[in-house]
């Protein structure tokens, strides 16, 4: 209980401008140009990130002060007046500075850290949370939502969350070890073959942030990112309902041509577009690919030009990725294909 109260306080504190200004003041001291950025752990937008923030800053302050003390003492030892040096050159300074002082400070930090951990334990002990399964693939993310009716909705490379509601992420892998990390939401957690790790996240404000695989997973590890989109509850519900439906039918002749090309050229071997014959489960689900923020696990923006590049030249954009290059299309065919995929919103 205590930990829960503590957590609430620290979250509340995190949102107060006071902490912000302390942080800002620190930034002036440290040579930091800015701590924002969509992937920054220093600009929290999730409950866990908020609870870690003050702990981090406390430890940073302690570190700064201790470093200063050491530097000053060394300076005194080197150049100080005789009397000060004699005073410093004794056994008790070791016992005081090397044992008593660190034991005191570290005890404090340890307890603080343990309290934050316990807050996390309380958070994850909540029952009845909605869950989203995220699987680490080579080198992209499979994200499976479940509708209130229990229907599974596969998606990829993007995590949508309701604001102010904790969600349980089930993290899995069927290949190598990956690590799911959305810094603005909270800390990372590994995806390990044979296990399901659970991470409870709660976005505190609407908006887009970015995450990335944090455990080296071979090949294109550097290009395995994703976007997190936190949206108000009603928007989220509407979004989920719309994504539960099958793919939108082609609206223009060009899109229709694109769909035909998509089906004829075997894209469905790996990709699924619900509502069509394409039922592949190897690559990302493309049913609503047009509505995502990025392509290829945030390696490319989501537009027709990028789509065309990806289809023909993916191995240069993201080496070793598992999709073969499809270079058989003429320019017209490619733009038809891209038009079709972009239209899948």
């Amino acid at each position, binding site marked *: 209980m205590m930990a829960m109260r503590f957590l609430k306080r620290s979250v509340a504190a995190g949102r107060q401008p006071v902490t912000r200004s302390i942080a800002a003041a620190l930034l002036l001291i440290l040579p930091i140009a800015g701590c924002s950025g969509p992937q920054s752990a220093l600009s929290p937008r999730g409950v866990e990130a908020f609870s870690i923030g003050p702990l981090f800053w406390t430890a940073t302050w302690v570190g700064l002060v201790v470093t200063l003390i050491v530097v000053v003492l060394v300076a005194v030892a080197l150049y100080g007046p005789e009397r000060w040096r004699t005073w410093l050159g004794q056994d008790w300074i070791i016992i005081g500075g090397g044992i008593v002082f660190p034991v005191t400070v570290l005890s404090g930090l340890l307890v603080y850290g343990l309290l934050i951990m316990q807050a996390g334990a309380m958070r994850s002990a909540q029952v009845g949370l909605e869950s989203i399964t995220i699987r680490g693939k080579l080198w992209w993310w499979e994200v499976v939502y479940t509708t209130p009716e229990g229907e599974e909705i596969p998606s990829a490379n993007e995590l949508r969350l309701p604001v102010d509601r904790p969600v349980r992420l089930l993290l899995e892998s069927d290949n190598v070890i990956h690590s799911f990390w959305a810094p603005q939401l909270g800390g990372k957690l590994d995806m390990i073959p044979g296990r399901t790790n659970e991470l409870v996240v709660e976005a505190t404000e609407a908006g887009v942030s970015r995450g990335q695989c944090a455990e080296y997973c071979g090949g294109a590890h550097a290009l395995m990112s994703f976007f997190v989109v936190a949206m108000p509850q009603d928007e989220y519900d509407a979004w989920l309902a719309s994504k539960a439906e099958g793919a939108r039918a082609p609206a223009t002749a060009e899109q229709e041509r694109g769909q035909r090309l998509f089906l004829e050229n075997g894209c469905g071997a790996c990709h699924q577009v619900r509502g069509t014959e394409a039922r592949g489960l*190897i690559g990302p689900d493309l049913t609503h690919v047009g509505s995502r923020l990025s392509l290829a696990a945030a390696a490319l923006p989501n537009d027709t030009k990028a789509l065309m590049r990806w289809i023909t030249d993916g191995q240069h954009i993201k080496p070793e990725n598992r999709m*073969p290059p499809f270079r058989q299309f003429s320019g017209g065919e490619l733009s038809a294909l891209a038009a079709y995929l972009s239209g899948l919103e």
Partner: protein
Amino acid sequence: MRRPLLPGRKGLFLALVIVLFAGLALGAVFIFSGVYNVAAARHHFDITNAVIRLTLRRSVKTHSLGIEPPAGLAEEALARLGARHYALGCEPCHASPASSRNPVVAEMYPAPPPLSEAVNHWQTEELFWIVKNGLKFTGMPSWPAPGHDEEVWALVAFLERLPNMDLKTYAELTGSTRTADFAFLQDMSVEGLAAMCGACHGDAQTAPVHPFAPPLHGQKPAYLRRALIEYAQNRRQSGIMEPIANELGTDVIEQLARFYSNASGAPMPSQTPPGSAALRRGEEIAEHGIRGSDIPACRSCHADSASGEFPRLDGLPAEYIAIQLRLFRDGVRASSTYAAIMAPIAQRLSEEQIEGVAAFFASQRPIAGEAAQR
């Protein structure tokens, strides 16, 4: 303490240097003056010849160490496939039981040896190495399709049988089509060409001479067209098919593709017993793929509903499918647009899976006629 070099030794050293430089200077004069006669009519001295031959023999022997002949080398079918290429590509220079050496070729220097006898001088592996790599300064080319060892072995299988072969056997092995050189193809009709193709690929009555030469009937025309064009433009490699395709004009290719897509052929016997584990494994991969290994279902593309550029695999010989998958897997067949799609997928297949897939498609009945063509 160190003893200086003796004056005598110093002199010797100096003399050696002088001799070395003098030799280099003489050599330069010899080359730049153009005194040396390169005419083929002027033969080497016997001693030069002997040294060259010895060098050649030793080089071939050393380089062919570690080559192991494949299991089916003694099969007559393989020799048949090789024989047909020999008649087209090798006979003009190396003679055969049916023809003696061309008198023009005989004046090459060194002259290509009539192989009926020469083959006796070489071990199987050495023959393979020579056919595969060619020989410098002799006019013997290397095999035009690097990595396609299966084709080279087919030829070697035939060469092994060549010594003392009588005319009848030769005619029988080569399919009795008498040809002189590649230029023959130009003015033949589609039917005539088809008869030529059928010599290896089979026709309505006879099965292909060897599984490596797949049956063509009922294949999708777009794929056949693409295959011939890729051979002709050296985007797909084959020592046997490239020289032939190179002689075909686009219109002829078009006609051949149409012809074969409508033709019907002799059924290939399926070797794998139905219900075997390999067959089940193959069926699973062909129909559903393996999700965990990122292997898509073969049928996603190799189906009649898919683009005509993807070949139909039903009824193709298992050996052919397997060897092509291995070529894809090993990066030998990876340069064309479509091979670039297949190669990374083939890399995810184990040897067992390759065998299974090959067996599965071989067991499927091909659908004849144009009904399924797109």
